[in-house]
């Protein structure tokens, strides 16, 4: 781009680029980068998640400049940010709700991957790196939630760190090590603060690996078939920059709505009370994005086994590329999986609902059934459906399907460019 019209500026850029091919790099990965031409809006969630990570780091750094990581002052220092720091309320509400938005984006991104088989060969490592990012996000968000040192911060920290006490023999020692003492206290807060500041940058590093893996074989697409040549792709810029920008603005509308008009809707009122080690809230719940795991944990009567299943529900995702035996990626051509996918979505929502409610009566039954189904879905249905299902015929190429109508267009998550 820089060499379009020679001038002083472009000569400087060329001089630098010869020695440090940065512009070339950007050109290769953000401008010319060949992208499947049939990507739907479901492919916006990856870049949106990346932008959200930047927003979280930026707002987080400004909050860290005003926050006091001490058990006696943390709560009040957060209130000071809300009241007396210029636009402190904005930065904090953006950070607080940003965490929820980040999870909405990443969960949608992952369900898209599950629907279109984006984890299948040769993208297994891409998927695995994504699961690593999810685990890091869960750790980061949990420790971030502890920092305001409200009632729910304190008790969530107590409950979650106590999970490690389920480990036989060394469990209690691990918990003491995590706490830095014999109860959740100031040392716990200090180390959580240090780690909460550190982990996002590790996430950035894993995101870079995720991108390297992505650019090796390029994006998957709604048809789930390989790119066969330049006729199947469009350059990233301007086609996908503008599409991502439009998606970004629509997402920001949702985000801004929460920040400005419902900033506390996704949080718990209990956390507006300062931490009180002498008084347990009558109902301890994690943030909404951790509710499904919490539901799995509570559905198992045995503590150790509950912890194993809750962690297992995430670690299970690592082997998803090998559990799915179907040679076809996109659910569009998989008549059975297409429906079973939605069962998983319903199942996870049900688990979230179970996690939000006290474990009594119906909640327990639904929770146990949904937990059972979650594991059956991946461990039994995934391999079985792949073997038994007869996939529909795949189109010859993306270009054939998109440009000639192809006869492969199906309902559901559509092909936005498939105009005959």
């Amino acid at each position, binding site marked *: 781009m820089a060499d379009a019209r020679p001038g002083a500026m472009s000569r400087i850029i060329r001089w630098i680029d010869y020695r440090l091919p940065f512009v070339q790099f950007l050109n290769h990965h953000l401008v010319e980068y060949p992208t499947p031409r049939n990507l739907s809006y479901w492919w916006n969630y990856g870049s949106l998640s990346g932008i959200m990570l930047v927003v979280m780091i930026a707002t987080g750094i400004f909050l860290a400049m005003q926050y006091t990581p001490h058990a006696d002052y943390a709560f009040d220092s957060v209130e000071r940010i809300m009241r007396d720091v210029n636009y402190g309320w904005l930065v904090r509400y953006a950070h607080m709700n940003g965490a929820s938005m980040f999870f909405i984006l990443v969960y949608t991104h992952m369900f898209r991957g599950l629907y279109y088989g984006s984890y299948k060969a040769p993208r297994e490592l891409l998927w695995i790196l994504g699961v690593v990012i999810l685990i890091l996000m869960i750790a980061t968000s949990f420790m971030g939630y502890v920092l305001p040192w409200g009632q729910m911060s304190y008790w969530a920290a107590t409950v979650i760190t106590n999970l490690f006490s389920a480990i036989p023999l060394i469990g209690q020692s691990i918990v003491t090590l995590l706490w830095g003492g014999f109860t959740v206290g100031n040392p716990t807060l200090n180390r959580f603060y240090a780690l909460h500041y550190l982990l996002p940058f590790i996430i950035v590093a894993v995101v870079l690996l995720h991108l390297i893996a992505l650019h090796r074989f390029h994006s998957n697409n709604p048809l789930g078939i390989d790119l066969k040549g330049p006729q199947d792709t469009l350059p990233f810029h*301007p086609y996908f920059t503008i599409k991502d920008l439009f998606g970004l603005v629509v997402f920001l509308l949702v985000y801004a709505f929460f920040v400005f008009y419902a900033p506390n809707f996704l949080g718990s*009122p209990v956390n507006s009370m300062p931490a009180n080690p002498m008084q347990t809230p009558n109902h301890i719940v994690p943030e909404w994005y951790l509710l499904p795991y919490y539901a799995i944990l509570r559905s198992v009567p045995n503590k150790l086994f509950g912890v194993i299943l809750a962690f297992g529900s995430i670690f299970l995702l690592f082997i998803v590329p090998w559990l799915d035996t179907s040679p076809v990626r996109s659910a569009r051509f998989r008549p059975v999986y297409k429906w079973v996918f939605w069962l998983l979505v319903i199942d996870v929502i049900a688990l979230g609902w179970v996690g939000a409610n006290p474990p009594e009566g119906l909640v327990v039954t639904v929770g146990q059934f949904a937990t059972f189904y979650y594991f059956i879905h991946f461990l039994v249905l995934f391999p079985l459906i792949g073997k038994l299902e007869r996939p529909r015929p795949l189109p010859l190429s993306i270009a054939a399907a998109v440009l000639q109508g192809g006869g492969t267009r199906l309902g559901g998550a559509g092909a936005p*460019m498939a105009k005959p």
Partner: protein
Amino acid sequence: MLKHVLAAATLSATISALPPIARAADESPPLPHQEWSFDGVFGTYDRASLQRGFQVYKEVCSVCHPVKHLYYRDLAEIGYSEDEVKAIAATYQVTDGPNDQGEMYQRPGRPSDPFVPPFPNDQAARAANNGALPPDLSMIVKAREGGADYVDALLNGYKEPPAGFNLLQGMQYDEYFPGHQIAMPPPLSDNAVTFADGTPATVPQMAHDVASFLTWAAEPNLEDRHRTGFKVMLFLVVAAGVFYAAKRKIWAPVH
């Protein structure tokens, strides 16, 4: 195409909006929803109501309840002039120090002081209140499910206990308090205060005004937030239109 974005947003919203099941132990009637001036996208605080609410807080609640996150200077935001704020602050005695002799001393309050708490610490507060701790009210509206509606309902919710209800010694029955046993005696009675603007000081009126005041105490930046939010949303709606048009134009040749 847009429908996918919307579908995702709706799905996400549904997940978070699923109603929690009411607990069996908690048989409180549903909170009556009040009309609040600060509700909605354009909501602002009603200054007259906030000032009346401040008066109720000052003359009634502050006997037991601190609002430690408020400073006297903050009162300028609810319509008091600089001189009025100074005069209000000066009616309180603030412990300051230590001075050159190493002694703590009392001086009249200044606008830069936080609201003076009624008790020196939690233990003193418990000792004076039959063992119960009157909570700090600066965040009470944010810290209770139902917010201002809850505070309003609680203050109006004192009743005779139903037959057979085992009310403990020194406790009151309140319809909306979790478990219904509340240590706070009914704080409001008709004409407990005399409003300068002539508004009749009925219990519902005082409850409404003090709930408004406490909402402001919990969210002093609400008006700023609503105003800024409207500008941001407006900008984003316009930007979405522009980007969508640009997207259509750029993609037209390759469809």
